[in-house]
């Protein structure tokens, strides 16, 4: 019997490998890196073969003024038609040209098939001329793209309102115009077997620590995936600790945040097709620092940052504290409040752990559902749902009124974190803490906090300990930790990223 089973498995594996090979042959690597011929029709046939006669591949044949046949090949929808018709075809057919210089902004020649195919796929057009093996690659990208708008996940009260878009070049431009430093280096990588996504890795030469930059580039280059659809793919593949709930690489939609982080010595990773840009290395402070902190004056900024930290702690610990106090340590609650709370709970048939879990899960479901609801209904349902469900649950005797307040405060508190990935981590960790509180009360909460602290101490992001600058203790770095010191006191860059150029503000000269 087992023999039959083994044979069956072997056959399945063999078939699977065969199919995989067939498919693999079709990916980019399989395009032979060979030069094209000088015969126009052959070249056209070659290209059409590569694309399997896709119907959106357009071949536009015409004659140049010198009398030769030419063809321009592009993918429909990806090109700006004006460039093709006005600049390429018209200039070549109407004007008297002795040498070919189609009027367009970018012009390259090649004779490698792979490069030609790649360019067609990127939205460029290729110009074949009969009798020449040189093929012109013309930049004609012009598909519809989203315009630069305010980022939806990170809005600020004061600060720039442009956010990244899905186009790599636009994103790079948004960074460049803010950081007119010739030392800003961009390294271009192509990642993903099938998607062939363009990736830029940016850093400021002389500020960022070279080993960190090299490590980032090395890890990205070693990726061997089919697809990079979003920076999240890259983030998850290159991070140090896969199984930690805490994000070790930051992501943002805001150019000003990227520029600020680049200036602190970090590395930015931009991926074509997504507005989210990665920042590496990232430490714990990403959870509650926002670029807005630097635009306002330091009292306000410190206060608001402090409020954020408190909200994060509340979002993490409040339900568990409620469970711990009401079930294990009621002597800690003032006597008058205890009676009121007991009165509220007297109709509830469940233990407070179950009650808390129930409410929290209900709120999570509501929250997730309201993300998908269209238009104006979404937020409204969220609020209405919470209020109505809460009230109804209390009247039905399912939860106590105190619980509703706690859950509401927790939910609101979790929105205070400016970084969405970090906020999710906190939301997720809420449940184990509640569980531990239900087992051991305050002692359980403390156990969990210790476990979390040990874990946080052991995480490093590209060699930088996650808990810097708290531990290892770095007093200079702590000027930007919870309070935001005034700008004139933060003249040096944080040294935990081992920057080379430490000074960011010089003393005023007498002149």
């Amino acid at each position: 019997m087992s023999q039959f089973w083994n044979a069956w498995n072997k056959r399945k594996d063999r078939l699977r490998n065969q199919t995989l090979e067939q498919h693999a042959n079709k990916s980019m690597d399989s395009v032979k890196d060979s030069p094209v011929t000088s015969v126009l029709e052959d070249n056209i046939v070659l290209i059409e073969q590569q694309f399997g006669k896709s119907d959106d591949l357009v071949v536009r044949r015409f004659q140049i003024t010198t009398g030769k046949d030419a063809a321009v090949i592009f993918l429909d929808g990806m090109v700006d038609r004006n460039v093709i018709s006005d600049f390429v075809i018209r200039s070549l057919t109407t004007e008297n040209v002795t040498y070919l210089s189609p009027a367009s902004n970018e012009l390259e020649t090649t004779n490698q098939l792979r490069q030609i195919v790649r360019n067609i796929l990127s939205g460029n057009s290729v110009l074949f001329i009969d009798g020449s093996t040189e093929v012109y690659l013309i930049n004609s990208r012009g598909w519809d793209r989203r315009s630069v708008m305010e980022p939806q996940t990170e809005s600020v009260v004061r600060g720039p309102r442009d956010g990244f878009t899905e186009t790599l070049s636009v994103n790079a431009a948004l960074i460049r115009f803010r950081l007119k430093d010739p030392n800003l280096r961009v390294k271009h990588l192509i990642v993903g077997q099938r998607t062939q996504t363009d990736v830029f890795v940016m850093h400021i030469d002389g500020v960022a620590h070279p080993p960190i930059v090299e490590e980032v580039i090395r890890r990205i280059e070693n990726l061997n995936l089919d697809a990079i659809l979003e920076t999240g793919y890259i983030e998850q593949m290159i991070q140090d600790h896969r199984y930690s709930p805490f994000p070790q690489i930051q992501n943002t939609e805001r150019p000003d945040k990227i520029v600020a982080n680049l200036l602190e010595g970090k590395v930015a990773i931009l991926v074509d097709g997504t507005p989210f840009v990665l920042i590496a290395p990232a430490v714990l402070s990403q959870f509650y620092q926002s670029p807005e902190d630097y635009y306002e004056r330091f009292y306000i900024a410190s206060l608001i940052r402090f409020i954020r930290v408190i909200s994060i702690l509340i979002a993490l610990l409040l339900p568990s504290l409620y469970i711990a106090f009401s079930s294990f340590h009621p002597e800690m609650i003032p006597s008058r409040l205890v009676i009121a709370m007991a009165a509220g709970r007297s109709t509830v048939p469940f233990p407070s752990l179950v009650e808390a879990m129930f409410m929290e899960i209900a709120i999570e479901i509501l929250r997730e559902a309201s993300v998908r609801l269209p238009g104006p209904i979404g937020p409204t349902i969220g609020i209405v749902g919470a209020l109505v469900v809460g009230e109804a649950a209390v009247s039905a005797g399912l939860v106590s009124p105190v619980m509703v307040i706690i859950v509401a405060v927790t939910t609101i508190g979790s929105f205070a974190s400016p970084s969405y990935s970090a906020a999710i981590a906190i939301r997720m960790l809420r449940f184990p803490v509640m569980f531990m509180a239900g087992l051991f009360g305050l002692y359980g909460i403390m156990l969990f906090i210790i476990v979390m602290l040990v874990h946080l101490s052991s995480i490093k992001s590209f060699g930088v300990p996650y808990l810097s600058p708290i531990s290892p203790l770095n007093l200079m770095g702590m000027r930007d930790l919870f309070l935001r010191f005034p700008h004139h006191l933060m003249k040096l860059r944080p040294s935990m990223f081992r920057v080379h150029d430490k000074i960011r503000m010089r003393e005023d000269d007498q002149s």
Partner: protein
Amino acid sequence: MDKRWSYLCLLLLCLSFLAGCWDRRELEERASVLAIAIDAGGEDEERYRVTVQIPIPIKIAGSSGQGGGGNSNAVKVMSVTGRTITDATNNLQLRLNQRLFLGHTRVVAISEEIAREGIEDILDGFRREALIRRLLWPIIVKGKASSLLEIKPQLAQIPVVFIMDLVENGRKMGTIPDKTLGDYLNETSNKSMQPFLNYVEATKREVKWIGTAIFHDHKMVGSLTPIQTWSLMQLRNQKRGGDVIMPLAGQEDAYVTLRPRFVDTNLTIQPNKFKGGGLEAVFSCEVQGDIMEYVPGNIRFASPEKFIEAMQKELKQEMEKRARQMIQKLQKHNSDVLKLGLHLRSYHFHDYWVHHDWNKAFKDFPIRVEYTIKLRRLGMEMEQ
């Protein structure tokens, strides 16, 4: 790979905890006892009768819109007997559907009868119980202690809250001494001083504070009236005490009321000038206060300055008289609640303490009190 195995073992071990959450007890499963009253039990074996007051949560108004039925039924009073305190509480537990929770107990009322016999064994149980707060107030009740729990004051929903507020307010005003269980235990352990506790009397509708009960070791030996208690508080704790209402000498229906604002006391031990040899204790107490009420008699004073001088002199004599009465009572019952012994032990150890047995020596130790009254203000009215 090995790290994953270690994590797996960790997880499995943790899962085994699901077997039980031993200490979890929901709020509504606990019967919070806010006050305990201890009386003498009737029969021989059953030495104590313990009465408790348990609030009924549903009936308390202001919670989730339900309840709010009459104040009178907001608590339940239950009473059992037992051989010891713990025995009695266990008997009580047998009659309740919820677990007794002593973590919120604020008041322990003890009847005078039991106090006079000695309360050492009661307090031993309390010491060992982890949940009892040292901040609770033991109160001695004239008559039966359970009468304290059966009052139905109109001013508060839960009677014990009323008592708590009474003591709390008095403490803040400086008129009722703040004697907690912790203070009591400290003082009994300390070999150089004696404890005292608040003394109240309860009728059907109200509670009245009638002074303090003074102890020698664990037995109550006497009591001080409110006026004497205020003298004690001024000398011992530098608290204000209450208003001093004094009839003016030699006149009918003439009274003056002093409200102390600030009290400062110094205790010095000096060689005794009289009675040959030995030491005497001198309490110098400075009281600053305002005149709050003046019912004039026949005498008119020439000027406000003269008025103040005369008042200060008369008040001084009055206060000293009261203090003397208080000290006489203390020495009669041999209960050093003045912390005199502590002072002697701390600062005069080698010359006095090692040679004398304070238990016997306190009775005859010469103590003098000198008051200095300083009148600061006359209230809102300037005319005499």
